[in-house]
């Protein structure tokens, strides 16, 4: 596919997306597409440190910190969700500092493993700190519709809010990837020693990338809580829903690229909901077996993810070089 045709296709698709709520009355479809937008935002935010080769399986931590902050401020102290969103970002940034400073010394897989523990610890705290979080029951967002309360009768406002979030996060990820920071991260991912010898403070680059990622994930968490009207530890700090799912979306779509997380979220969100609904009733956990199989097949047969199959061919000025390396580096 040529870049021009891809752009045209993207434009048409985007126009269709904006028009959907005008024609579709089905709450189910609106909910599903909204969920896709949330997962696009979440996966793209998760993907920012992956530019530098750092894969977290603990992003539910930031999602939960943001969501809980927004909910507690609103339910317990009557603070506007819009201010709560800013506070949610601040708290998840703090969580980002606490998690990443000790973990940054760890290489690839060890970083990933340690990140799981972080979200689990926060889930325990959310269960035990009853006076603040109401324990495992959680907090309900009272139904008082209105923009000031970020609560709505119709599903349409959140359709557009989540769409704006998705576009904003993808845009931020795009800008970061093409900035000096993006270069430092990519250099570190492919040869950290050489990057350092060239003057790149790679630990600082990873740290900044994780802060962007955690702050954005916290922001998404706040909006998500008001979308589903409730915070509870097992949802907000869910390993499977918000730590594994973004990673899975990213890997299947194509990690470390801009469009991989978008495509991954679009494909995997309906698939995941479908599996959870149908297979979950047959035998709990069966849906994750299917996930595992899909993951293994992807990593083995299309290691660059779906995005590596649809990337437009770039003109290559090098003499006689093949296109074998095309898939390695995505725009």
């Amino acid at each position, binding site marked *: 596919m040529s870049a021009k045709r891809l752009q045209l296709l993207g434009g048409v698709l985007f126009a269709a997306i904006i028009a959907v709520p005008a024609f579709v009355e089905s709450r189910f479809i609106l909910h599903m597409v909204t969920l896709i937008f949330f997962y696009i935002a979440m996966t793209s935010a998760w993907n920012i440190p992956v530019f530098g080769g750092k894969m977290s399986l603990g992003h539910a931590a930031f999602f939960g910190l943001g969501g809980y902050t927004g909910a507690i401020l609103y339910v317990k102290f009557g603070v506007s969700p819009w201010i709560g969103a800013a506070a949610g970002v601040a708290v998840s940034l703090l969580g980002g500092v606490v998690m990443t400073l000790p973990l940054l010394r760890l290489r690839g897989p060890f970083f990933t493993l340690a990140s799981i523990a972080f979200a689990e610890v926060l889930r325990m705290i959310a269960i035990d700190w009853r006076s603040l979080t109401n324990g495992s029951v959680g907090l309900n967002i009272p139904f008082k519709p209105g923009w000031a309360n970020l609560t709505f009768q119709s599903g349409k406002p959140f359709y557009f809010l989540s769409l704006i979030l998705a576009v904003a996060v993808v845009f931020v990820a795009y800008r970061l990837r093409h900035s000096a920071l993006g270069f430092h991260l990519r*250099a570190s991912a492919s*040869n950290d*020693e050489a990057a*350092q010898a*060239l003057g790149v403070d790679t630990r600082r680059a990873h740290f900044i990338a994780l802060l962007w990622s955690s702050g954005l994930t916290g922001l998404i968490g706040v909006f998500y809580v008001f979308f589903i009207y409730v915070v509870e530890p097992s949802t907000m700090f869910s390993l499977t829903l918000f730590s594994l799912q973004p990673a899975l979306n990213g890997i299947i779509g194509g990690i470390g690229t801009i469009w991989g997380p978008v495509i991954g979220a679009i494909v995997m969100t309906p698939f995941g909901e479908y599996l959870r609904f149908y297979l979950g009733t047959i035998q709990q956990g069966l849906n994750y077996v299917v996930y595992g199989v899909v993951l293994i097949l992807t990593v083995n047969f299309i290691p660059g993810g779906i995005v590596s199959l649809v990337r437009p061919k770039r003109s290559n*000025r*090098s003499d006689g070089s093949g296109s*074998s390396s*095309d898939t390695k580096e995505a725009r």
Partner: protein
Amino acid sequence: MPLLQVKNLTKRFGGLKAVNNVSFDIQAGEIVGLIGPNGAGKTTLFNLISGILHPEEGHIILDGQPLNQLSPPRRSLAGLGRTFQVVRPFAMTVLENVMVPLLARDPHMDKARDSAMQMLALLRLEHLADAQPDSLTLAQRKRIEVARALATRPKLLMLDEVLAGLNPTEISENLPIIRQVHEQGVTIFIIEHLMDALMAVSQRVLVMELGALIASGTPQEVTSNECVIKAYLGEETPTC
């Protein structure tokens, strides 16, 4: 004052002294060669100077500034450039590879692109700017390695076997580039396993064997030194 001062540097790997009490100076404007058999400790010495490894003993001073406590990126910013014996370019275009060190100093994308392009021109790589390095020959990849290190605008450039593995034609293409860089005012410290190539460019040569510095002098002095002949040819001589 010398540009680089190395004093009593020692590095152990378990029981092995990979670098054993090594001291030497390099003056600004020099081009100094470092030879020695495989495993002599040459690359380890570079790793100590650039901060990838930490010595058990000894001091490294660049342009009057002690380097021991600085991280590798800080040493790079202080004016130390190096290439790696095993070239592994970043998985990005040739141009982007050279932009990395420039962006570590100034985050402006356009400026970095322009300077990187100039650097590629200097190393006759500009026609490959948009190529992926893994589609290139070893000789070309080694030149990317030099271009990247040179883009840091180093006071001292350390080259680790940038000619090894190249055929005679490629060597005769890459050798003048090293001279050209030197003529631009960069001090060069170069490891080369190939004696002939090294002798052709160096003003002064250091010789290492089993972690120790065993000789130093002009190429002529060193090639006639009995200890060096022994190290390379394994002949018994009473003085060593």
